[in-house]
């Protein structure tokens, strides 16, 4: 384990989400240590995306609370103040399955915009930092291009650079390679692995079991809005406690 066991960066406590009577998250609790990489796996409809989106309040939980670095994120989790929301989202970066780059901006502007608007860095510092991040994810040659002129794999790496530009303490990834061809997806996974090696705290929803096995410190299997199985990858993958887990793993590995 490369992470600092003592420090809990994010504490999710009994997170619930109900969509019009449909209970999608049934009280999920989880501690994320600083530097830890968590793979969130589970069948379609299990609530993985919903849970991830509850962690930066793109989706407001209907119950439960979040703590970052020991401090409650919201005075009242059901009535988030605007400033609390902004501060949470600036501390937690997110990467989407469909990249969602801003098509009207150049690649480098995609990475500088939030830095400037959020008052994190001056224009020139933001630009310098953006170019450094773009180089880190291997797309510096596309800095002046439009996102539409980049391949899917490049776009996703740019999206990672954009999320990193806020200096987040925690990075969330929702199936970052699902929309990509495998070879291209590997470029993205390599970038994520470098991040993990550099000590970035990450929660990754993924169907890439090999990535989960090699990079994650801990695997969480979500099923019907609950954590069904949890542990180091070798345990969850080789010796699952539940029959459902083995069935799910077989189904995924057969694909």
């Amino acid at each position, binding site marked *: 384990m490369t992470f600092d066991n003592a420090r809990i960066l994010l504490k999710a406590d009994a997170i619930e989400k109900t969509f019009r009577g449909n209970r999608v998250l049934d009280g999920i609790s989880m501690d994320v240590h600083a530097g830890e990489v968590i793979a969130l796996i589970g069948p379609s409809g299990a609530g993985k995306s919903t849970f991830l989106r509850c962690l*930066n309040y793109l989706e407001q939980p209907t119950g439960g609370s979040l703590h970052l670095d020991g401090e409650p994120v919201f005075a009242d989790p059901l009535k988030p103040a605007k400033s609390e929301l902004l501060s949470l*989202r600036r501390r937690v970066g997110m990467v*989407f399955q469909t990249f*969602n780059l*801003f098509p*009207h901006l150049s690649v480098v502007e995609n990475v500088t915009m*939030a830095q400037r*608007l959020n008052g994190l860095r001056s224009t020139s510092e933001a630009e310098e930092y953006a170019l450094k991040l773009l180089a880190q994810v291997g797309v510096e040659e596309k800095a002046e291009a439009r996102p539409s002129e980049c391949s899917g794999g490049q776009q996703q790496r740019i999206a990672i650079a954009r999320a990193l530009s*806020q200096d987040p303490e925690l990075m969330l990834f929702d199936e970052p390679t699902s929309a990509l061809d495998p070879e291209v997806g590997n470029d993205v996974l390599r970038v994520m692995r470098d991040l993990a090696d550099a000590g970035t705290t990450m929660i990754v929803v993924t169907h890439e079991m090999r990535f989960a096995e090699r990079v994650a410190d801990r695997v969480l299997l979500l099923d019907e809005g609950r954590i069904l199985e949890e542990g180091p990858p070798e345990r969850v993958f080789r010796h699952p406690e539940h029959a459902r887990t083995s069935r799910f793993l077989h189904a995924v590995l057969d694909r």
Partner: protein
Amino acid sequence: MTFLADWAEWLPSLLQGLGTSLLLTLCVAGIGFPLGLGLALLSIAPARIVRILSIAFIEIFRGIPLLVVIFFAYFGFPDIELVISAFATIVVAHSLNLGAYSSEVFRAGILHVGPGQREAARSLGLTPWHAFSRVVLPQALRAVPGPLMSFLIMVFQSTSLAFAIGVGEMTSQAFSIGSMTFDYLSVLVLAGIIYAIICVVSARIVARFEAKMRT
């Protein structure tokens, strides 16, 4: 070929009227388009009552013929002790009409920006205002110039309605020439040709612009 001599004689005053028509068009666009954008925003506001009121406003001004709105303003404003020039009356009435119509274009543009864009903006910790003004709006506005320029041509044509309350734009000028020469047909043909030339040329420019936007 005597009509050519007549036309040459009338042309200066028609062109003067044309200047007024163009000025009206500019004023109407300057007020009507921002109004349309504002109405579009209100019509998708979070508060239900705001949505209902703005949509009602849009429907009313799309439903009432422009000429009726012009008369309504012309005869109605003095009743509420609002004294403005005929020119200003036209600008107000026409802007309401244009605002109502163009709001649909702005609205479609805004709704065309997918939820993923808003989520990406929010996930970066942008304020709602920044998310709207830097992410949603610029993308929404990329789709609107073509339709808005078509509106502009229609506005230019319907400035001829200003004739009804005696604003000296091109149709009024043609009419007053006609009333002196009793040769209504000839002067209206000339005015029609000028309208057509301007509209055809601008429609061409718009079409070329739209083709360029698409590539």
